[in-house]
């Protein structure tokens, strides 16, 4: 075996041999049966290799990968929208319909707690006024507590989804609807004030679980946060559309609120 020609034969198989070496090799192959046999074997191996088919993994592998990524919190439930205009409108439309639907549900629930003569407040106040541990009224109080937690959860869900919608829209914009520093600072400060009010209302409710005023304060704060997030999304939408008048109107409203 002429080992000096082996390299050339491999290059010939790969199609990378230069013209000069190819001529030299062909001349050698005319004279050397051993190298011709080696070349034939290499071609046979290459031909067999070409017949190897690609292998597809079972579908379950992707499902397991996706499941693990979700478990690890490495991916978000909603896909990040692309920066094209249509998907961003879609995100805003979803956010708007979501807020409307949740808002109606919350409105109905909050009305129960807000109405001075409403069943929730009356029932909740009854134990302290009359028989504090009477079983039927205790059940009523627990029921009121459960409804209250449900109403608060609706608010929290709305806030979480609005925050996500705002983040998605901001990410999708690639910065072209970034808020100016002054407005961003104002929004940030408003959010801090509202979060502080939420924290204080919760603290008051912990010490006085049946306090109607503490509940009202909490719902007020949660409602203000929903409204602020709605305005933030609307502002980004107007800025993206290049509507400076609309943006200024929203900012003005935010400053007054």
């Amino acid at each position, binding site marked *: *075996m002429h080992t000096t020609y*082996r*390299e050339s034969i*491999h290059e010939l*198989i790969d199609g990378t041999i230069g013209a000069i070496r190819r001529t030299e090799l062909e001349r050698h192959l005319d004279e050397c049966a051993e190298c011709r*046999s*080696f070349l*034939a*074997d*290499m*071609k*046979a*191996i*290459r*031909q*067999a*290799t070409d*017949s*190897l088919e*690609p*292998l*597809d*993994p*079972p579908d*379950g*592998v*992707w499902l*397991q*990968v*996706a499941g*693990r*990524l*979700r478990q690890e919190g*490495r*991916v*978000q*439930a909603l*896909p*990040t929208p*692309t*920066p094209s205009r249509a998907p961003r409108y879609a995100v805003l439309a979803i956010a708007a319909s979501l807020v409307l639907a949740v808002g109606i549900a919350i409105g109905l629930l909050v009305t129960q707690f807000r109405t001075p003569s409403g069943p929730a407040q009356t029932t909740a106040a009854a134990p302290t006024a009359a028989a504090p541990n009477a079983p039927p009224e205790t059940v009523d109080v627990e029921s009121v507590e459960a409804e209250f937690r449900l109403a608060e959860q609706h608010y929290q869900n709305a806030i979480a989804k609005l925050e996500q919608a705002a983040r998605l829209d901001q*990410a999708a914009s*690639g910065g072209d609807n970034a808020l100016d520093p002054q407005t961003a600072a104002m929004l940030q400060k408003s959010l801090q004030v509202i979060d502080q009010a939420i924290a204080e209302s919760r603290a008051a409710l912990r010490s006085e679980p049946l306090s109607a005023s503490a509940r009202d304060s909490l719902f007020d704060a949660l409602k203000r946060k929903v409204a602020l997030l709605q305005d933030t999304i609307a502002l980004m939408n107007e800025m993206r559309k290049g509507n400076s008048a609309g943006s200024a109107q929203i900012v003005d409203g935010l400053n007054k609120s």
Partner: protein
Amino acid sequence: MALVERCRRGDLAAFEELYKAHAGKLFSVACRMLGNPADAEDLLQEIFLSAHRKLDGFRGEAALGTWLYRLATNHCLDYLRSRAARTSQLTDALDDERGHFEPARGGLAERSITRMDLERALAQLPDGCRAAFLLHDVQGLEHREVAEALGIAEGTSKSQVHKARLRLRFLLSGAEGGGAV
């Protein structure tokens, strides 16, 4: 927005797109490296989870496909290293017993090589050689890309592929009549 950037942002749909584009190629390599589809499935999961974790470190110096091949072959080689010490023995045999690569009987060109014969012979290649051969001769990467994927020099890639072909020639020549394969 680039696919990688969307994956970095936690977009699952983007990562599924990346998975669909590359899973088949990586699974083919993993199957043939490990010789066992069940192990390859488990490893494929780990490869993509690892890819997702490491995407922040992907700077685009290599093509995404080459980067993924590198992750995959590293996983395969780590797995094989932990599985058996015979790997190094085979590598030694490849390096030291050059004369054994000569065909034991007639040339391969005179008979057809079945896919099963080839798969069996591939399974007997030393791990490093097999990885280089699979990437170059089966997956169609250039030596430069194989070198990037395996973290070796381009010349080493060439020599590993050439050694793999010689070893296959030896193994397949012995296959007829129940020889080496």
